[in-house]
């Protein structure tokens, strides 16, 4: 079912372009910047249309950049700089994901911003980038590489939407940050649910890094209907039992308390004899001074996102690699 929905979404992006693109209204920035001249005009137009469609449907700015010369020493910093300085991103939080391909150093990097930080985990970004770089860019198939990358973006966005629609819990982890400033924003949960794998990745370089865990999905009002019905049933059973019991007053007396003479002296003598004493001791479990924070590393690695701060002071997620 999910595959069908995914295919339908892809088909929709390829064939239909009827929804107004808010991103294009916001900025007229090019979504595909082919400085390295790797794409033909037709391919560039095709990719531009795809990125515009994604922006319209998922409200995520998808940017593809190729270049031969870069301004920053670190490819991740280059991606962050391109995103920040050109004003990419949609909405107040500037939600977006930028892919930069450095042909001179044969490196790639992805930079995420806004809600896209928690939408794409490290695992997602590494997987998307490495698949495109190793399988396509390394063989000179730039158009196919970018198409695969964009399709991967759509797939992840669609999965998040599905999990939201199905009301499935995307994870029981809550957002937390271990950075010094520790200000992981509780942001993406309201738009998309984190449910994607992540990897340790190579994000951030020497920049500040934070770990963002998946926020737990809030329960919807529908989830409470069953609980309310069960509680209502219990209350009804109790109420009706009480009402029915009031209809019967023929019962035997249990004791003769009312006939006890309260005026006559009631004497009660108390006695307590100590018999024996025993002491048992149980070893106290010593607490591990540094317990593992994540008992399931596999699960943890697939659900975490590394966050870093760019030179412009913006928070970014990201991944990078070589090919």
């Amino acid at each position, binding site marked *: 079912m999910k595959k069908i929905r995914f295919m339908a979404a892809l088909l929709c992006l390829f064939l239909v372009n009827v929804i107004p693109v808010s991103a294009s209204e916001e900025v007229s920035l090019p979504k595909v910047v082919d400085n390295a001249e790797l794409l033909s005009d037709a391919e560039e137009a095709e990719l531009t249309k795809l990125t515009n469609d994604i922006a319209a449907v998922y409200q995520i700015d998808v940017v593809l950049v190729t270049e031969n010369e870069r301004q920053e020493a670190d490819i991740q910093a280059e991606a962050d700089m391109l995103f920040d300085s050109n004003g990419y991103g949609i909405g107040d939080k500037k939600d977006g994901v930028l892919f930069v391909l450095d042909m001179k150093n044969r490196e790639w990097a992805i930079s995420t911003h806004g809600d896209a930080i928690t939408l794409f985990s490290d695992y997602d970004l590494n997987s998307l980038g490495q698949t495109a770089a190793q399988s396509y860019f390394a063989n000179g198939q730039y158009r196919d590489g970018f198409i695969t990358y964009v399709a991967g973006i759509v797939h992840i966005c669609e999965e998040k939407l599905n999990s939201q629609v199905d009301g499935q819990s995307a994870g029981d982890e809550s957002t937390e940050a271990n950075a010094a400033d520790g200000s992981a924003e509780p942001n993406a949960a309201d738009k998309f649910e984190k449910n994607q794998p992540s990897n340790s990745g190579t994000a951030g370089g020497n920049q500040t890094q934070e770990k963002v865990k998946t926020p737990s999905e809030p329960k919807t009002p529908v989830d409470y209907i069953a609980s309310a019905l069960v509680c209502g049933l219990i209350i009804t059973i109790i109420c009706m039992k009480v009402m029915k019991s009031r209809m019967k*007053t023929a019962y035997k007396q249990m004791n003769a308390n009312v006939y006890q003479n309260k005026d006559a002296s009631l004497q009660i003598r108390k006695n307590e004899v100590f018999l024996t004493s025993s002491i048992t001791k149980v070893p106290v479990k010593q607490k591990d001074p540094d317990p593992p924070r994540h008992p399931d590393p596999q699960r943890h690695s697939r659900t975490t996102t590394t966050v870093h701060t760019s030179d412009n002071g913006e928070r970014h997620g990201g991944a990078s690699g070589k090919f």
Partner: protein
Amino acid sequence: MSTKGYKCPCCGGNLVFSSEIQKLRCPSCGNEIDMDTIRQYAEIVESVEEQKDTFDWEEDSRGSQGEWKAREKDGRKVYTCPSCGGDVDADQTTAATKCPYCDSPVILPGQVSGEFHPDLIIPFQLDQDAVKEVFKEYCKGKKLLPRGFWSEHNIKEITGVYAPFWMFSCRAKGAVIYDAEKIKKWRDDYYEYTQSDLYLVTREGDMFFEYVPVDGSVELDDTYMEAIEPFGMEMAEKFEEGYLSGYEAFKYDVPKEKCRRRAEERIKSSFEDTINQSVNKNEYQTIIQKSSRIDCKNGRVQYALLPVWTFNVKYKDKTYSYAVNGQTGKVAGNLPVDRGVFWKFALGVFAGSSVIIYLLMILLLL
């Protein structure tokens, strides 16, 4: 090592005397108890457990008397109405009734004399109209009651009856023993310690019970007669036949020897309740009643006629019986339940409570 037939107070295992420590030791749980303690323990337990409950009821001076003479007619006893001379049928236990011909009250003196002479009587405090009002009030607020059930027309055979009761009074002395445990916990860096101290708790009580009633009539339902209790004996009068006039009355046909078991059950239950209340439950982590003994001294049994209104309500081919305390107006009986109303209420409560809970949950969610 030698053994002695003492049981461990903790686990019930056989205690074994340890010559090393000069104490009794339980091989099961390892408890150690010195001889003085176990001797004291055994004395208390045996004093309670080995003695049986005793209930000493004084014999009254009620002597047996010859049967009241009556004419036999077709195998039944027939009495003659002193007013009209008509034949009044009465069964073996009838002490007072009404003449079917002249509606005159008829008292059968032989049924309330000699061994059947009541010691006490509580005169009726409520008349028929008051009983109907009482029943009307009783039906009020019963939402599951079928409409039309309460109607004066439905009330049939409303009858004021002096019911025979045996009244038991006594001084109750006895003891209740408990196994009690106090638990104290503490810990250090390496161990968590639990100290369990076992105690034998004894409570001895001395109290009085007065006029515990037990229905002495086979015809009257014991459950209904207990349900309309209590009767206030402060309004009891010395029996005079005149009180019976205008009412029906039965003489007892269940002897006091049979009724006293029920009185003893209730007295013992109350005795234990009172004693249990004197134990501070917060003082012990667990406290379990081990056994109890009660001695009833100075027991006194009196025969009394107590006022009871009985009537039936006929509704939809079914007859529902009720009894009303003729002194206090307390009603006993089972009212019918309207199935339709029942399910309507259930549905309403279910829908209402579910919606309220749902809204509360949403509010908390927001």
